[in-house]
């Protein structure tokens, strides 16, 4: 079972990112579940979501304490939340950040999703949309395939800018 934890803030689309990832994995022929853990907070507050991907049906509903992959949609969260908590030794980290960040563990990727979203003018109520571009990055990392990523995006949104953003993230991902 491949376990992913996504850190974001309310309104940034972390929950949708988890759903998209699960859908893409599902389109890859895997079993997948996505579960958000909602805090009591409004937009802006830290939120975690979990995605599990496996070849067998998944019966676990509790949170992920030892993720294989940690996605951080908002690097500022790292000041308040220990995003690397429990990350497996050989784990992977994906940061939304133009630059590499200190103190990362495992294989550490970064990409400026915010910049990509702003470039595509993907903004809702003042917040850039990060959930569709991040799928591109995940495809590049190999968690899902790029066609499934794009298909998942198209199933959920009918705005091609999201696809463009994902493709951009696929290209711009850096270690």
């Amino acid at each position, binding site marked *: 079972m491949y376990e992913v934890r996504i850190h974001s803030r309310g309104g940034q689309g972390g929950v949708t990112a*988890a*759903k998209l990832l*699960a*859908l893409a994995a*599902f389109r890859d022929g895997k*079993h*997948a*579940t*996505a*579960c*958000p*853990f*909602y805090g*009591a907070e409004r937009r802006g507050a830290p939120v975690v979501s979990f995605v599990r991907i496996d070849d067998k049906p*998944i*019966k*676990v*509903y*509790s*949170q992920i*304490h030892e993720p294989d992959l940690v996605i951080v949609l908002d690097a500022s969260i790292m000041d308040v939340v220990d995003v690397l908590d429990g990350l497996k030794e050989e784990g992977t980290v994906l940061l939304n950040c133009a630059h590499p960040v200190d103190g990362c563990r495992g294989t550490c990727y970064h990409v400026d999703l915010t910049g990509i979203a702003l470039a595509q003018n993907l903004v809702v109520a003042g917040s850039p949309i990060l959930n569709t571009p991040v799928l591109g990055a995940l495809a590049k990392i190999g968690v899902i395939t790029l066609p499934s990523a794009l298909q998942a995006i198209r199933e959920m949104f009918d705005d091609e800018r999201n696809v463009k953003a994902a493709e951009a993230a696929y290209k711009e991902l850096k270690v």
Partner: protein
Amino acid sequence: MLTIATGNRAVAEAVKAAKPAVIAAYPITPQTEIVEQIAEYVTSGDLESHYIPVESEHSAMAACIGASVGGVRTFTATSSHGLLYMHEMIHWAAGGRLPIVMANVNRALGPGWNTWAEHTDAFSQRDTGWLQVYVGTVQEAYDATLMAFRIAEDERVLLPVMVNLDGFSLSHITQSLETEEIGDFLPPYHLPHAIDTEKPRGYGPMTGPDNYYRFRWDIERSMRDAREVITEVEREFADRFGRSYGPTEEYRCEDADVVVIALGTFGKEAEVAVDRLRDEGIRAGSMRLRWFRPFPHLDLSGREVVVIDRDYSFGFGGVVANSIRAKTGIEPYSVIAGLGGQEVTYNDIADFVRGRRPGEETWFGVNNHV
């Protein structure tokens, strides 16, 4: 059609398939998505139904009551305080013998405000004459909602059905979902006592001590008959759609020395715990209680039992543990866990089994326990 969906979405999909003519509901976390999705279907025309955006849950149930006795299939959904606020009408719907289907997204009760899973909301309605089923997967949320209409409307039953799903942990989880063309699985709505102006009758008038108890008995009689109806409907559902359910879902129970009993998502997560325990050589099994009303006939003889209650009846004990005690005579190890969304993993469940003390009660996370 095979897709992925949340538990809430699955309920909404089932409602779309069942085509109730009137839906009245009020939003509340974590049920909201059901209501929103249905509003979306009705607006887009995907579901031809009258959606009544009531001003409270008391009115939601009252509107369902009016519509149901008016002669059409009805649906509502709620959670937690919404369920409590409609308590009076929940009793009324059953007493009025109306086959209303309601999805309840189980959530804890305030104060303090807490939007996470707990079963006390629905258990607090367990005397009302409603059938109650608790589901464990997104697919089951869909399937149980569909079957709920068929069971409720069966002439042998004519009682409302509450489909319960754990707040967030099931309502908001995304899993795969197979939706169906249901064909004639649901026959047209027929209520023998529907309002008929050609046959005027007084509904629920003053009823004296000489007669009142007879109608109460009829509710119980129908509850008992419902066991058979449930079995029939679940069998037909399995025949048609290939997924089969029963009063409980048993996992590796056949040869188990110790059985974990839980409802909802804990009942599924317990299966993972069972696998771990078996790996350790503990012959564990899991029995997920699906139907809570009518309460199933359980055979647990010769087994140790660990019951997880995600609820509590203060000054008495865990509702599930005590129901099992009353109905089977077995003294379970009663674990109170998961209240207000308290995190309980398969490891924790395995621990409950490892450290079981039959006849005792423990509150998970509380040091100061009995």
